[in-house]
């Protein structure tokens, strides 16, 4: 097991003929991911080292039964690519692209609501189930198969924590980089629910950062619905208070968005919080020992 991606993943890569697209499609395939198709409008019929390229996602799905898509297209085409992947029936859509306008993502979120697709990202490193499948740009060398689940809002910080886990011999079931954009697909709650239900995952590490109120909501969810141990890390304790204009944001969230407030929410929910990546590794070691096999 694992969550969201594994041996059954059949991946198409949107934007496969671009520099990033071909590089990561081949890298994902080299790791063992079943990369079945590429999509680039106008490039149908070509092949990227044996991966067939189609003009549209619908044709790619029809010909290859792709069930997941990796979106690696420029920001101005990204919303369109997500609609297209969903329309073609992709169950999982992982969007790496950064710089997508918020209005476009608000429309994407409204469109996807209730349709049953899972969107990860945008502006994220993707997702890896070590030893099974890599969908995105997470460096594979630092990962190791195992029983720790990881979900993170940050990219490179994810690598840092995975590195700490692997260094202690703690392998990972699945690492999910959900991305840090204001509007994103899968959040902490969905990832936590997935890990709770996954028999292979024994403990979870959650990596948050300043801004928004996702961590506060996650803390409440953990207190109410998780039986597996969760360790948290929040980046930004010494970050300068952001310049803020207007008050509407604070009225909606009712949260200050600071690292202090988030750490407090986790601790109040009984979640242990590491002050730095080393402490997170140590706490996970404790958690894995105590967790049921």
């Amino acid at each position: 097991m694992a969550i969201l991606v594994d041996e059954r993943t059949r991946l198409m890569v949107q934007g496969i003929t671009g520099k990033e697209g071909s590089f990561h499609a081949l890298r994902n395939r080299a790791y063992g991911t079943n990369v079945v198709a590429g999509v680039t409008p106008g490039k149908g019929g070509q092949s990227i080292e044996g991966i067939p390229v189609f003009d549209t996602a619908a044709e790619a799905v029809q010909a290859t039964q792709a069930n997941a898509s990796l979106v690696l297209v420029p920001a101005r085409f990204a919303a369109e690519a997500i609609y297209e992947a969903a329309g073609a029936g992709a169950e999982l859509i992982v969007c790496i692209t950064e710089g997508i306008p918020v209005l476009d993502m608000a429309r994407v979120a409204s469109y996807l609501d209730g349709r049953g697709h899972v969107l990860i990202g945008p502006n994220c490193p993707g997702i890896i189930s070590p030893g099974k499948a890599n969908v995105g740009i997470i460096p594979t060398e630092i990962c190791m198969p195992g029983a720790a689940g990881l979900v993170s809002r940050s990219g490179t910080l994810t690598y840092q924590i995975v590195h700490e886990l692997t260094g202690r011999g703690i392998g990972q079931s699945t690492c999910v980089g959900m991305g840090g954009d204001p509007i994103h697909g899968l959040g902490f709650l969905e990832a936590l629910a997935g890990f709770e239900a996954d028999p292979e995952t024994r403990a979870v590490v959650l990596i948050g950062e300043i801004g928004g109120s996702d961590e506060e909501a996650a803390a409440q969810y953990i207190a109410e619905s998780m039986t597996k141990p969760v360790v948290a890390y929040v980046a930004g304790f010494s970050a300068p208070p952001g310049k803020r204009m207007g008050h509407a944001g604070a009225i909606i969230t009712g949260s200050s968005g600071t690292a202090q407030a988030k750490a407090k929410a986790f601790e109040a929910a009984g979640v242990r919080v590491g002050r730095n990546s080393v402490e997170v590794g140590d706490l996970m070691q404790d958690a894995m020992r105590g967790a049921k096999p």
Partner: protein
Amino acid sequence: MDLYEHQGKDLFAAHGIPLAERGVAETPSEARAIAERLGGKVAVKAQVQVGGRGKGGGVVLTRSTEEAESAAARILGEGFGGTPVTRVLVERLADIADQLYAAITLDRTKKCYVAMVSAKGGIDIEEIAREEPQAIRRSAIDPMLGMRGFQARFLVGHLPGAAREGTEKILSKMYEVLTAADATLVEINPLALLVDGKVVALDAKVTIDDNALGRQAALAGLRSSFPVDPTQARANEAGLQYVKLDGEVGIIGNGAGLVMSTLDAVSQAGGRSANFLDLGGGASADSMATSLEVVLSDPGVRAVLVNIFGGITRGELVAAGILEALRRVDPKVPIVVRLDGTNAAEGRRILQEEGDRRIVPAATMLEGAERAVALASGAG
């Protein structure tokens, strides 16, 4: 990108949101001329992007053109809240019957926009939200549908009768501004009901989504009117996220989360960071060299900590960039380097072979933070 009040009001005017008559002045005499045209009784408002303008002397109500001129002279001369002020907005004084509040902004949790209207405005709206939540009505807007008429009617339903129709019209225009300008915040505080029954926007807070500036050429052009510090401009041009702080340890890292985590590590080691600098993904040797130049241009920096965990970013390019920077800027302070991830071993080898004593290798992020803090305090 936050707009100045006068820029936000120009946007409001273009979409038909009623405003008080106004003009922008860059000199006291221009302020006087505008005040004269408006009949003398005006508000002179500092154009700044910090809050607390009303209480802090950044808004002056005047009764004559002379007073307007001297208020403008004071604000333009002294600045406001520690920042220089280059422009004042001169606005005709309105006869206010009631102060309200209206805003549309992003709701990250609901993944859509939300409109809010408060029957009380002009004062600390967050306090009202806490203490009198019933004074504020909210409605989530599906961006596929836009703001519907019934939503606007609901939002104004608790306002004094005379203010309802005007506010309802303004709300739909605020949503027009939001979508047309790719704004993530459109806020009016106060929204004023005047004695003559009109509803007008007496302030404008508009934030434009930075990700949308590529398709908002006219708004992107407004950036040239913002005061920019030369170091900041250099960083922006190279695609670096740089925020100046007041410590002594310069920080360079890749990825916002890792850089924030590095600031935390420095603080836990008992030091203070001089800046936040995120190289971004796929950094080149040149962007590494530019980063070091930017960080070292701060005279307060006593040591630099470079913390890279390579994914797309490759270790050998980071090392090459550090060596390039040593040649370009000849730093006088030690540079602690922690490299991990893609091609890190190669990067560490390149730095070691150079044998420059200013480069101090660190095996881990925490060790790097401790070394840099010790070196910055002269104890290294």
